C-alpha cells in the first residue's frame, strides 16, 4: 500500500510513532474523526498510533476499525471508542496526492488529450474531473481543504460525507469477515477478500473443506454437504507419502475450485490479487489425509508460463496448519518441481513478512545442508544454484544474511561460521519431515501458445 510506504519515509510521521504526553483536556471529539485520520489507541497497556479506517454502530456503541501504524494489517481490528485516547492529538489524513495522480492518469487514458490540456488550469479542471469519479470527489476536496483551517476542514468532511463513505481503498483495507469455518476449524481471517458482498453482513463464512464452496447460511452449507461427494482437490495426485499428498490443478479446467481457493487464500494473503482470473495458473495443493478425505493444508500457485522465471506466485499454509513446518514442505515441493523442469526458480515478489521468513529458513537450511553434508571444499554460487534450483540472487542473499561470505586473503570464501554449525546441528536433531523426490510422479505440463492465451 502506498500509504504505509509514505509513512515510512516521512520524518514527520516517524516522529508521531512515539506518543506525545497527554493533555488535560480532550483534544478532539469523536465526530471529528474521519476515515484516514490517525489517533493514539491503547493496546495491551501501550499507546500505539493507529489509523482509523472505518466506524460502525453496534448496539448503540460506535466501534472503530483501526490499523496500527508500522504493524501488519492482519493485526487491524475493531476497537471500542474508549480505547481511543482523546487526550492526545489527532492527525488528519494525509493528502492523497498519489492517488490523485493515479486517477488523473486514468482519466487521461479515458478521454485522450482533452483532459491533459485542461489539467493545466488546475482548479477548474479538477472539478470537472471530479464529476466523473465518485470517489475522487472527497479526495479532491481534502486536497483543497488543506489551506483551510482544521476546524473548517473537519466540518466540511463531516458534512460532505461521513467516514463510512464508500471509499474503495478503505473498503479493501478493511477485513470483511470475522469468522470462517473451514473443516473442523474456526479461523479468524486476516485480510479483505471479495466474497459476495451480501455475505459480509453476517461476517461469517462456512467453507466446505473439500470443494471450498462458501456459504453464509448454515442450512445451505448443510444441504451442500449432503450432496457433495468431493473428497479431495479436483486434480491429479502427483505426490504421496505417508504424511502429505500433493495435487496439481489447472486453473483453466477447475475454474470454480480455483476461484474458491483464491478467495479463501485472499483472506490470509495481503498482496494476493484477484484482479485477474485463475486461468494462467497451476495450483499445487498440499493435503493431509484422514478417514474423510484429503484435507487442504496449503498450496502454492504457479504461472503456466512465467516471464520472470518465478516458480511460485502465491504460497500459503492455511492459518490453522501454520507453525507445523508445512510451509517448508510447500517451498521444498516448489523447488522439486523446478528441479524436474531443469529450471531455476524464485518466488514472485513482493513477499509477505511471513513469506520472507519461511523462504529464508528454507534457503538457509538447504545451503547449510549442502555445504555441511557434502563436505565440499570449494563451490561456486552457480553450482549451488544448479544443485538446488535456487536462483543465484537468492543464494547470495542467504549467504549474506548468514554472514557466510567472507573476504579472506584477497578472495571471497564461504565461511561456515560456528553459529551456522550450531544451527545445523540443532536442525539435525529436530527430525522434521521432508519430501521424498522419488515419490513425485510428475511431468512438467506443456501448453501450446493457444492454451496460454487467456482471454475470452
Amino acid at each position, binding site marked *: 500500500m502506498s500509504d504505509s*510506504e509514505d509513512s515510512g519515509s516521512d520524518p514527520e510521521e516517524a516522529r508521531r510513532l512515539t506518543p506525545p504526553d497527554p493533555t488535560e483536556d480532550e483534544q478532539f471529539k469523536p465526530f471529528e474523526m474521519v476515515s484516514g485520520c490517525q489517533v493514539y489507541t491503547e493496546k495491551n497497556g501501550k499507546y500505539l498510533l493507529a489509523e482509523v479506517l472505518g466506524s460502525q454502530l453496534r448496539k448503540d456503541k460506535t466501534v472503530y476499525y483501526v490499523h496500527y501504524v508500522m504493524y501488519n494489517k492482519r493485526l487491524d481490528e475493531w476497537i471500542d471508542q474508549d480505547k481511543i485516547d482523546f487526550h492526545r492529538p489527532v492527525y488528519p489524513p494525509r493528502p492523497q496526492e498519489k492517488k490523485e495522480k493515479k486517477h488523473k492518469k486514468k482519466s487521461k487514458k479515458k478521454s485522450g488529450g482533452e483532459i491533459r490540456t485542461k489539467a493545466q488550469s488546475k482548479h477548474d479542471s479538477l472539478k470537472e474531473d471530479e464529476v466523473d469519479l465518485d470517489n475522487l470527489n472527497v479526495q479532491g476536496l481534502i486536497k483543497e481543504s488543506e489551506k483551510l483551517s482544521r476546524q473548517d476542514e473537519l466540518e466540511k468532511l463531516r458534512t460532505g460525507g461521513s467516514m463510512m463513505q464508500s471509499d474503495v481503498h478503505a473498503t479493501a483495507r478493511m477485513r470483511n469477515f470475522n469468522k470462517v469455518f473451514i473443516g473442523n476449524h474456526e479461523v479468524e481471517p*486476516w485480510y479483505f477478500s471479495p466474497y459476495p458482498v451480501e455475505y459480509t453482513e453476517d461476517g461469517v463464512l462456512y467453507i466446505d473443506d473439500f470443494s471450498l464452496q462458501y456459504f453464509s447460511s448454515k442450512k445451505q452449507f448443510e444441504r451442500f454437504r449432503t450432496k457433495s461427494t468431493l473428497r479431495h482437490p479436483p486434480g491429479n495426485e502427483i505426490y504421496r507419502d505417508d504424511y502429505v499428498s500433493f495435487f496439481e490443478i489447472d486453473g483453466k479446467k477447475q475454474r470454480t475450485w480455483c476461484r474458491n481457493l483464491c478467495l479463501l487464500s485472499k483472506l490470509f494473503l495481503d498482496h494476493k490479487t484477484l*484482479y485477474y482470473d485463475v486461468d494462467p495458473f497451476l495450483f499445487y495443493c498440499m493435503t493431509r489425509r484422514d478417514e474423510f478425505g484429503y484435507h487442504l493444508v496449503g498450496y502454492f500457485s504457479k504461472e503456466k508460463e512465467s516471464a520472470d522465471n518465478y516458480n511460485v506466485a502465491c504460497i500459503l499454509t492455511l492459518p490453522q496448519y501454520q507453525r507445523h513446518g508445512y510451509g517448508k514442505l510447500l517451498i521444498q515441493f516448489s523447488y522439486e518441481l523446478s528441479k524436474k523442469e531443469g529450471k531455476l526458480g524464485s518466488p514472485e515478489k513482493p513477499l509477505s*513478512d*511471513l513469506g520472507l521468513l519461511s523462504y529464508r529458513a528454507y534457503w538457509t537450511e538447504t545451503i547449510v545442508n549442502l555445504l555441511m553434508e557434502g563436505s565440499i571444499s570449494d*563451490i*561456486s554460487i552457480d553450482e549451488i544454484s544448479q544443485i538446488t534450483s535456487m536462483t543465484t540472487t537468492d543464494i547470495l542473499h542467504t549467504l549474506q544474511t548468514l554472514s557466510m561470505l567472507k573476504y579472506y586473503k584477497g578472495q*571471497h570464501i564461504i565461511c561456515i561460521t560456528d*553459529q551456522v554449525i550450531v544451527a545445523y546441528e540443532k536442525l539435525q536433531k529436530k527430525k522434521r519431515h521432508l519430501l521424498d523426490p522419488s515419490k513425485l510422479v510428475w511431468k512438467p505440463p506443456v501448453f501450446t501458445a493457444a492454451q496460454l492465451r487467456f482471454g475470452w
Partner: protein
Amino acid sequence: MALPSTTGRFRQRKISVKQTLQVMKQKDIPDLDGEEQQRELQHIETGVEKGEEEEKDLQAVMHATDAKFHGAKVADVSIPIPDASKMWVDASKYYQTKYQFPEDYLKFSSTVEDTSGCQYCMDELDDEFLIKYNSDKEGDKKCTEDEFEILMYNMERVVNKKQPFLSMDPSQILGFDEIKEIALVPDEADPTFIHRQLGTQLGIQNFRTMLDATPKIMPRPFRVLLELFGADIYPHWKGRRLTKEGNPIFPRLKFEDPSQQQRDDNDPYVCFRRREYRHARKTRRADMQGVEKLRLLDRDFRNAKELLLMVAQREVKRQKEIDAEWAVFRQRCAIKDMKRELGIKGEDQDLIDHKRRRINIIRKVKDSTMSERERLKIKVRADKKSLHKHGSSASEGPDSLTAQLRRQQQKQMAQRAGLASQESVAPPPVQPYVKLPSAKIPDLEMTTVNTVLKDKLDGIKKAVSDKLIKRKLQDEGWVNFTDDPYNPYFDISPNGEELLRERSHLPFSSIASSTYTIQDSRQIDFTYVFSNSKHYSNNDSEIVKVNAATGQVIRNDRHNFMPAFYDLAGKDGDDSEDYGLNKGSAQESFYEKNRLNVSEVLFKLRKRIGRAGCQWIDRKRITDSKDYQKYLDEIEDEQLVEDEPMDLDDESEKSVEDIEEPVEGTRKRVNVYDSRASVKRRLKSRFMFDSDLPAFDPVDPSRLNQIDPQTQEIRFGCMLLSKAYDGMHQIRQKQIEAYQQRLIHQQKLVQQRHQRLHGSGSGSGSVNGSVNGSANGSANGSANGSANNSSGSKSSNGTNGSISAQLQLPDNSTPRKGKSIPKRGVTSKSLQSPIKEVSKQAQALKN
C-alpha cells in the same frame, strides 16, 4: 583488487557467481580478516515491500535471526498472527461420510459442479417454508428437500436464461405456466440435462453417476414434481426473487461487466477479470484450421460418446442378466426346499443350470453401427469362445444328462462347431483397417494448391501405370513387336502450312523437331527386340526372356511393368544411360532406327508446267527415299510383262504397295530399250535433279546439344511457358505476315504485268485438277484405293485442304517465265542439297 583506502571505505568488490569459492570452517581460519574489512557486499533486496519491511514485528524477527547468526543469544521471536487454533465442534455433523482411498495416485478431472448435485442449496428461509408446506401433508404428498431444490433450481435456471436483465424491471417476471413450459424443454446448457438424457437413453430411472451422492429418498422426476408442487412453490420462489429485485436468490461473485467500456477498477468486490490479450491475427488459413479442428473434435467426441453409450447399454443388460439369474437361483432354492418338504424325488433337471445356448449375437452386432474393427474383434472373440466352449463341453458333459441327451447335444455341437469353423474360415468381409494410436494421427494440415496439384498428378500417374499393368497382364504370353504398344496413337501427318514455309528461317528449336516413334509397325525393324530384351524391362535384361520361337514370355517380373517412357518425372537415370549405351553399341538402337522427325518434310513437291500451259505438281516422299530408291531400282530391274499403259499415278500407287512387302528380287539385266523402264528412269532423274523444296537436314536439336531426348522434352515443356518462346512465336508470325504481304505485292505486280501483256487473264485448269495424280502416297502410308487426292479423299483431309489453299496463289499468277516467279527465286538456291543427299543415299544402297 580492492585495497583499503585511507578513508577506510572500500570499493565494491563484485562477486561472480561463476567464481569458485573455497568453503572453510570458521575455526580453520582464525586469522580471518578483521571485522571492518568484511563489509556488506552489494545490498540485495529482501523482496518484501518497502513499507512492510519496516514493520516492527518483522524487523524484530530479522534482527533476532541476524543476531543469532552473529553469535548473540536471543530469545525466539515470532510474528504474531490472529488466532486460528479454535476448533469447530459442530464440524463432525457435516463431515460424516468416510472416504475410500485409492491405492494408486488419484486421477481426477470432474469439477466442483459435477460433484455437488443440484446447484441450488436451500437456506433457512426455504427450510421454514418447506416445513410449513409439508406440515399438513402425508406421505407421498410431502415435498422432500431434494425435490424442493430441484424445483427451485429449475425456476432460477429458466429465469436466469430467459430474463438475464430481470433486475431492470422485476415486474416482468415470468408466470408459472411460462416457466413450466420452458423448463420442460430440454436445455443442453443445463448440467442436469445430461443426467436426464442418459437416464432416458439407458432406461434408468433416477440416473446417478459415481459423483452423485445417494439420497435417502430418490427424488421423483422433474416433470412429476412440477405437476405436484410447482404451482405451490412458485409463489415462494417469486417472492424470494422479487425481494432480491430480480437478481438471483443467492448472491454470486461480482465479475466484470463486459458491457462496460471501462474497467471497473474501483470496486474491490469485482474479481477474476478476463485478461486482455492481443488477438491472434485472423487469417483465412487459421480460420479454416480452426474449423477443421473443431470438426474433427466434434466427430471424435460423437464417436466416443456413442461407444460409451453402447458400453453403458451393455452393462445395463449385464446387470439385468445377473438380476435374472439371481432371481432364478432363489426360485430354485425355494423349489428345493419345497421338494424336500413334500418328499418329491427326481425331476431335478430344472434345478440345474444347463449349458446356456450361445446366442449368436454376431448378426445383431453387424447391424449395429459399430466400427468395422470392433465388429471383427467381437466376431473373432465369439468364434474362439464358441469353439472353446464346444470343445470342452463335449468332452465332459454333465453327469446328470442321459447318454441320449449327450449324444444329441454332441451332434448339435458338432454341427454348430462346424458352422462356427466355417464362419471362422471364411475371410471376414472387412477392409483392412489399421488404427493409428491417437498420438500418431497427424494434425490435418491446410491443403495448398501445390499439394492438390501434386495429388492430381500422382493420381494420373497411378491411373496410367495401373492401366499399363493391366494391359501387360492381358498381353501376357504375347510378344508385342511394336516399338511401344502402350504409346498413344500419334497421327503424324504434316501440317500443310509447314510444307511451303521456308524452313531455313526457322529458329532452331525443339518445337520444330520433336521426335516421335513411327506408329506403323510394319516398318519397324524387329531385330533389336529379339537380340536385346532390354526393351521390355527397363532395369534388368534378365527379367524378361522371350522365347523367340513361340513368342512366349518365359519369365516375367510383374513389378517391372512400367516402361521407361512413363517415368513422368523424367528422372529415369537408368534408362537414359542405357540409351546412351545402346547408341554406342554395335547393334543399332531400336529407337534410333525407327525414329521419325515430325517436322521433317515427308514429301517433296514440285511444280512444273507441262504442255499447253498445264500445271503439274509432283509429290515425292523424302523419308522413304531409300525405299523409293529401291523401288525405282527395282523397276529398272523388273521385266515388265504387263501390257496396260502405265500411268504415272498407278505407278506411284503401286510403289506404296510394294513397300509393304518388300521383295528381294534377283537382279536382272536392264532392258535399255524398254520404253517403260526409261519412263521410270526419267521419273527418277526428274526427282533427282528437280526439287521445289529445300532439303531439310533433320538434325535433332537434342542431338546437337548432346542431350538426352527426354531432357529435351522437358526443356520443350518449359519453353512453352517461357517468354522467349512467346517472343519467338511473335517474331515468326511477323515474318510470315511480312512474307505473305510481299508475296501478294509481287503477285499484284505480276498480274498487272500479265494484264498488260495479255489483256485478260485466263486461268487454265483448277488447282485441284492440277494437283491430281501427283499425290504419291500419303504421309502415314495408309493411302488407299484412289490415288486421286482430290478434296474429300479419305486420308489426310486437312493436309489436302491446306495444300490446295496454298496453291491458290501461284495458280492465279500462272507465270510464263520461270525466272520471274518470286517463289522459285527464293527456293531454287537451296534445291541443290536434297538432290545431293538423294544421290548419296542411292550410292550407299548400291554399295
